[in-house]
């Protein structure tokens, strides 16, 4: 019997890993409620290996999208891996018009999301070391007095996990936590760079209207940031609205005079509009600004193309010499 207990203890230690997290009430921000439970969060019991689609459906339905795990499975499930990858959960959320935002890896940020009424999708590693068991669940609440996390998980509608156990499994799950936002909503703790990355992802996925709402919200939240304006300009340009694109690029340049991206795109816009001289002037400036930066080669490409166009349409070199009718 003692042996069995010892073995149990050894196993528990193994499964809990070495990450020691404090009890919830020690880490709970003073302003946060002692307990939250988003009881209205829907529940989709998962099929075999389908915790990805089930957890994502839980989040999407909670954010107002009509979808089922069965509809999501063909968008995220990988039979050969018997599971789903977080990148593809992100892609699927975009396809359904939501802005998937990967939270910075702190419990505080998850708690802030719960406070805002949004459940959080988490990746847990329920195994340890060489035997990982990856599982997606949805955090819907916590109780600091009883020191538990409350989850929708797998086939169970409501699972209570001791907070340290939950936090440990999440640490071993590489602290992946995802929220799916209605475009235009920005989490309380969001950083501009991380949020803009998420919004640009929507744009890359072709969700232009949703991306525009996200950029607009970012402009309001971070009025000093040039990137949302760049995004606005790129969207306008993609839709063929040159005037709006020019205005947006000018705002971006005003906010960040040394930023090469907006200048480069302004030069491209001017080229597209047939304003060659001005386009050349802007791209030369962009090229000087981009020297040594990550954008150097992109700007060099633009410059080469603009120069080539300029050469092709250069003025007649014969001056006013007359030619036969």
């Amino acid at each position, binding site marked *: 019997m003692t042996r069995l207990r010892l073995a149990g203890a050894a196993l528990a230690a193994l499964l809990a890993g070495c990450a020691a997290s404090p009890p919830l009430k020690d880490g709970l921000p003073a302003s946060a409620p002692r307990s939250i439970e988003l009881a209205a969060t829907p529940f989709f019991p998962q099929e075999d290996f389908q915790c990805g689609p089930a957890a994502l459906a839980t989040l999407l339905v909670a954010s107002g999208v009509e979808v089922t795990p069965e509809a999501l499975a063909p968008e995220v499930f990988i039979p050969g891996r018997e599971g789903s990858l977080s990148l593809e959960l*992100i892609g699927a959320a975009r396809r359904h018009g939501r802005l998937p935002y990967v939270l910075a890896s702190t419990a505080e940020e998850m708690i802030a999301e719960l406070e805002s009424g949004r459940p959080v999708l988490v990746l847990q590693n329920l195994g340890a070391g060489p035997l990982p*068991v990856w599982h997606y669940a949805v955090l819907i609440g916590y109780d600091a007095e009883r020191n538990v996390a409350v989850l929708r998980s*797998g086939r169970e509608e409501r699972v209570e996990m001791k907070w340290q156990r939950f936090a440990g499994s999440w640490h071993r799950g590489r602290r992946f936590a995802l929220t799916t936002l209605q475009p235009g909503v920005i989490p309380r703790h969001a950083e501009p*760079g991380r949020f*803009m990355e998420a919004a640009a992802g929507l744009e890359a996925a072709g969700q232009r209207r949703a991306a525009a709402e996200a950029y607009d919200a970012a402009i309001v939240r971070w009025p000093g940031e040039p990137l949302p304006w760049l995004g606005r300009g790129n969207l306008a340009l993609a839709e063929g609205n040159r005037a709006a694109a020019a205005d947006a690029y000018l705002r971006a340049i005003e906010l960040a005079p040394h930023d090469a*991206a907006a200048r480069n795109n302004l030069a491209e816009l001017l080229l597209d509009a047939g304003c060659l001289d001005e386009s050349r002037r802007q791209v030369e400036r962009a090229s000087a600004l981009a020297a040594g930066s990550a954008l150097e080669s992109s700007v060099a490409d633009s410059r080469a193309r603009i120069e080539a166009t300029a050469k092709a349409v250069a003025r007649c070199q014969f001056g006013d010499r007359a030619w036969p009718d």
Partner: protein
Amino acid sequence: MRIESFRRACVALVSLSMISLGMQAPAIAGVVSTGEAVSAARGESPRAVVDATIARADVQGKLAELGVDAAAIEGRLAALSDEEIAKLAEQIESAPAGGDALAVIGIVFVVLIILELVGVIDIFKKT
């Protein structure tokens, strides 16, 4: 003969769809995409477009190998940025794939057996 031409049409269609996969470019060619500017602002160097096109084809092949329905692959990849596709190409076989919590029970059993075999514990003893 008819089957042959049908096959040819199929091949043409599939190749076309593969080519169109790589064309996610903005309306004007040389524009720095918002995503590229965001990563540049964070000090990350953006990956070349050529790499992204190769990575897309690469991921497409791998997903098909892993049993994903060919018809669904295009839509799945269209929802990701070039950078994400490149990441996926690197990690598709190794990244955590969240699946089933039930497997835990099996793993506990395996661990118990291993511990038993190496003599750390002795719970499966024959009386």
